[in-house]
Each structure stands twice: as C-alpha cells, then as structure tokens.
C-alpha cells in the first residue's frame, strides 16, 4: 500500500474514533448511559 494512502487511512480511522468518543462525552448521552448502568444494579 502506498504511504500516502496508508497515512490517509490512519487519519480517517483516528478521526472516526475521536468522533465516536465525542458522542460518549455529550452530557445527554453520559446521563443516559449512567442512568442505564446504574439502573442495572
């Protein structure tokens, strides 16, 4: 695989991971997840 393409793929992957992580730290989602996690106990 060409180095440029490899770099592009790595960059896209890291961006996707950062975007998903940003979903987790949205206050609404943290509250939803926390409510769900705590409700299971």
């Amino acid at each position, binding site marked *: 695989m060409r180095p440029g393409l490899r770099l592009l793929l790595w960059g896209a992957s890291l961006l*996707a*991971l950062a975007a*998903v*992580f940003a*979903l*987790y*730290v949205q206050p*609404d*989602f*943290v509250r*939803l*997840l*926390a*409510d*769900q*996690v*705590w*409700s*299971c*106990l």
Partner: protein
Amino acid sequence: MNPAAPRLPLMRLLICSSLILTLTMGIRHGFGLWLQPVTQSQGWTRETFAFAIAVQNLSWGVIGIFAGMLADRWGSWRVLIGGSLLWTLGLCGMALSDTPLTFTLSAGVVIGAAQAASTYSVVYGIIGRQVELARRSWAMGLTAAAGSFGQFLMVPTEGWLIGRFDWQQALLALGAATLLIMPLARFLREPVAPASAQSAAASAPQQSILQALREAAAYPSFRLLMAAYFVCGFQVVFIGVHLPSYLKDQGLAPQVASTALALIGLFNVFGTYGVGLLGQRWPNRYLLAAIYGARTIVITIFLLAPLTPWSVYLFAAAMGLLWLSTVPPTNATVAQIFGIRHFSMLSGFVFCSHQVGSFTGVWLGGWIYDRNGNYDLVWLIALALGVLAAIVSLPVREAPIARAPQRVAPDAA
C-alpha cells in the same frame, strides 16, 4: 490453502469482513441499553431480561460449533447470509415479543445463533483460506479491531435510536440494518478452484469432522488454548458487567463508570489491531501469555491503588488494550496447528469455552456478591485464573500438527 485456487482481492475481503464484524459485534454490545425500556414497558423483572441475555451467550457458544461446521462444509458466505436472516428474525422477534418465553427465544436463542453465524469463527474461516500465513495474524487483528470499533460505536448509536424513536422501532431499525450483511457476504463468496485442482484435492485423503474433533480433543495445546480462552471470557464479562456495581459500592459517581466503559471500548480497538500486528513477528503463545500476565498485573495495581476517577480511567484504558486482544492470536494459533479445513468448527469449539467462562464470570460474580456483600473473592479468582492462563499459554505448540501419511496434511500456507 490450495495454491491453485484464485483468491478474493485482499481489500474487498478486509472491508466486507470488517463491516460485518462492526455491525454484528456492535449491535450485541449495546443490548444493556434495552434493559430499562423493555422491562418497564412489558412489566417484566430484570431477571427475565438477564436470563435471555445469559441464554444468548450460551447459544452463541454452542451453536458456534455447528455454524463453524456448516461454514467449513458449505462456505462461510452462505452461513453469513443465514446469520443475517437470523439477526433480522431475532431483533424483530425481540421487538414484538409479549411474553418472557418468546423474548427468551428471540433475544436469547435466535440472536445467539445469529451471532454464531456472523462473527469471528465464520469470518476467520474466510480469512484463514484467503490470506497467506505471513499476513494472516495482521488480517485477523484488523478485522477484530473492526469488531471492537463496532462495540465502541454502537452503544451511543443504539442509545440515540432509543431516544429518537421508541425502543421497539429502534429494534426494528437494527433488524433492517442487519440485512446489509447479505450483500456483504455475497462479496465474500470464495472463488472456486480450477477443475484440475479440484480433482487433485478430491483424490487426496480428507479428514472427517469426527477425525478432526478427535484429533483436536487429544492434542494438549488445543486443550490449553481452550483453558486460557475460558479465563478470557471469565475476566472480560465479569469486569464488563460487575465493574459499575463495584464502583458504585466504592462511592464513585455513575459518570465514572460510563466513562470507564467508553475508554475500554476505545482502547480495545488499538489493542486488537496491535496484537494482530505483533502476531506477525512474535510467537502467539508469548503474546497470549503476555496478555494474561498483563491483565493480572493491571487488576492487582487497580485493587491495591487508592480508588479515584483517574485510577479507574487508567485501569479502563489498560484493560481496554487487553480486552479482545486474545482473539487474533488464539484463532491464528488454531489455524496454524490444525490447518484451515476444519478451522471454523475448531475455532467455534475454543470460543464455546470462552462463552462458558463468560457465563461463569457473570454468574459467579453475582452469586458471590449476594453471599459476601462484596466482590473481593471474585477479584481474587480472576487474578488466580489470569496467572493460570499466562502459565498454560507458554507451552502451546504452534507448529502444524504431525499427522500420519494417510491423513490430509494441514494447510498452513
């Protein structure tokens, strides 16, 4: 691997396998989000929901062996198409169930079967046949990382679906999404070998399913891999299910637990890919021993260090790196030892051991907690099992098994 058979283009193989695993591993990982809406809406106890999920885990493990047999015999792509239909049936059944029995059958048995027909054992069968040994561990690591990414991605996605629609519509939407597996599976249809190669292969002695099972069951390294994978299932599911409860008992805020689960998901992606890459350079038995040993060290430090949100986050990141990283080296070792003719079935057997470990971890965690009022003993068991798994991984022989001349030689190339 038959050198005369044409191969699937590597990029197509990796993209389609990764998308399937992202979807199938991801959907299942977010099931906990349905606990509250399902039990409240139907007036069921949490035990009803938990029982269906426990059945799902066992169904995944047991049916995985048979899904592997079918994949080895009829081709993985056909089993993947069956898996797609089972996913749709199971998710729609879950949405429309109005009794605990139908819920257990759909969410438990059918979705467990769907997972068995659409996750690692079946997909890795194609990778084993289509990717040469030198790149196999890397390819397994890359696709396992896609499965880990799916777990990371689908929790917020499913949370959004439940919030945007109601829980039943969200399940129906996921049921429709799983139909996407069918065209992806079609792209994974393996090319047929030329007639000359087929007739040569047909004239060679073939190992039957029973022979393959007997051979594996009698081979000490296979038993060691199964024992270590049991420990993997025990530790991962015990921590995944009971960590929030443990943190709550220690007086930490619920946000700490949810952030910890997110960190496990994030670092899991790097861990699975990295270990697949390392498998190209280092013997898999050393990698497995290092993973189980590192888990033991990380858990020990976590239990001994003062508990703060940051110690939880560090623990979650470290455990995330080690979370599903056992998947590529375990499967690559099975393929190396026994070849790829019955790989999906044997991989299914090893995974069944993982699922028994998962069931034991989640059940024992609850059982001991109810009796002792804390998790101390379960943590100690998890530590002891980690040491044991590290030790039993070291003597695993990765070289292709030596067979009598009348048997078919393992295809390790």
